[in-house]
């Protein structure tokens, strides 16, 4: 599913003394079948944008086209229902989306809501729980008695059980243990590879993850799109790095720290440990007698 955002602005509590202009004239396209990362400082408007894409909030100005559905200030909730059934959204804090009496009921809710019978919904739910690494023994527990990371997994299970075409993920790996972060990202890639037009948008502060997984990065700043591009095109932009608006992945930070008195610095766009090691090794050998 392709998403086109055109001149979108959004204001919380418009007109009042506490009005907050969270998005200002945002125009951006999220191509179908790709992984998009939305990054940017605290309060830059990332979660607000995701809520608009999901039709949870409507733009104050401008329009959004998601797979042929148009969302504007005048859209009615009824029209958005059909769009929403194809969208899986994971909220920044899983507590924001869990609500049922048991974990199982929570995960079954989506499939039931969109027409599955109980048996099918339950099957889908158990499968999704297993995929996210939640033991079946937790299925009957109240979601609010889960640990933070278990809640995150339950929320993700609920979204995967919907078999969505578009995933909107707000900090999906926050609170997961390092193993879990990898497993969950693998799940998302598998989901994406099942069909050609599956689009994934994720908000994250994890630059290592962004650099390794994103096809396209959108950098937000104070409610606007500051810039966008591929990992390599962004992390070779010295202006952004110097200004401090674009944090570096850990491997790039190490590359950027190498002293440059006697030889030219290596490029910093190596994002896996192996790539960074290759680059540092050849940099170290440069200038050695038999290099």
């Amino acid at each position, binding site marked *: 599913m392709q998403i086109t955002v055109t001149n979108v602005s959004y204001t919380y509590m418009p007109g009042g003394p506490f009005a907050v202009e969270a998005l200002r004239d945002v125009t951006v396209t999220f191509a179908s079948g790709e992984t998009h990362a939305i990054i940017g400082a605290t309060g830059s408007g990332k979660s607000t944008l995701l809520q608009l894409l999901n039709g949870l909030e409507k733009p104050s100005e401008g329009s959004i086209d998601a797979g042929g559905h148009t969302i504007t200030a005048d859209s009615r909730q009824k029209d958005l229902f059909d769009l929403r059934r194809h969208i899986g959204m994971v909220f*920044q804090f899983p507590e924001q989306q869990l609500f049922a009496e048991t974990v199982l009921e929570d995960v079954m809710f989506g499939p039931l809501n969109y027409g599955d019978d109980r048996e099918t919904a339950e099957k889908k739910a158990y499968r999704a729980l297993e995929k996210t690494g939640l033991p079946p023994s937790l299925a009957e527990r109240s979601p609010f008695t889960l*640990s933070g990371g278990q809640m995150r997994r339950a929320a993700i299970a609920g979204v995967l059980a919907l078999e969505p075409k578009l995933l909107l993920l707000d900090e999906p790996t926050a609170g997961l243990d390092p193993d879990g972060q990898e497993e969950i990202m693998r799940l998302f890639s598998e989901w994406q590879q099942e069909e050609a037009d599956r689009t994934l948008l994720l908000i994250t502060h994890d630059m290592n993850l962004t650099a390794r997984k994103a096809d396209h990065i959108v950098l937000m700043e104070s409610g606007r799109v500051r810039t966008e591009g591929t990992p390599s095109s962004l992390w070779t932009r010295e202006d952004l790095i110097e200004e401090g608006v674009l944090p570096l992945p850990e491997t790039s930070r190490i590359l950027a*720290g190498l002293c440059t008195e006697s030889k030219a610095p290596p490029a910093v766009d190596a994002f896996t440990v192996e790539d960074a090691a290759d680059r540092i090794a050849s940099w170290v050998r440069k200038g050695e007698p038999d290099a």
Partner: protein
Amino acid sequence: MAVIEAEGVTFSYNSGETPALHDITMSVEKGEWVAVTGHNGSGKSTLARLFNSLLVPQQGTIRTCGRNTADPAEQVRIRRRAGMVFQHPDNQIVAPTVADDVAFGLENAGVPAPEMKQRVEHAIGRLGLTGLEDQEPHRLSGGQKQRVALAGVLALRPEVILLDEATSMLDPSAREDVRRLMKTLCREEGIALVSVTHDMTEAAETDRMIVLDQGRITAEGSPRSLFQDPARLEEAGLRLPVPLQLSLALQARGIQVPEAVSEEELVNALCR
């Protein structure tokens, strides 16, 4: 001097269930920075809640700042002296404005008004919340809420700070800034810090790491000593920090570098 002492602590949320924590014995010294890590569901948050007497052990005892956490008469005092920042900031919002929320703990602790005002202002400035003082905490972004919770504990100036994944929603530079701030409090003011974290870069900076697995302590020691045994870490769902992974990858390529646990250490070694 130990500010937290846990001895033989076992805790279950519901009787008959497998305990969330089994036979935990550990302590935290004044001025020490301890990282608690481990799988999701291994008992980290439960341990933090036991330390500030939000929960009480069924077996064993915990003394926080010298007081028994099971003694109902001590609980309010313990929570004031061992300030906690929760994993989910909404659980902690109590007041209608950011400024009142940050001041809440101080008010209860009976801090005089002028001093309170000054401490609140300082904490708000330090956490980058200036301009948001009159906002409703519920109407903030995720990272802004976490900053409010952190400002509250900073203003309170407790003897022990318990951070339960308290910077998980902060952008990298804010996270780094909070880490530096907390380190300063620990090193210069002798505040004991317990950070529950999945971030190995943060864990690498602490004095001691405690690894929990299914409610038991399975490893404990300086980060450097724990990183000597990657297999054991992986069992607990953890990884080596990136600088160390990179050091090992460089060694495998015949480059002579020490096993650096921090970026700084690796960069310095490479630039020698």
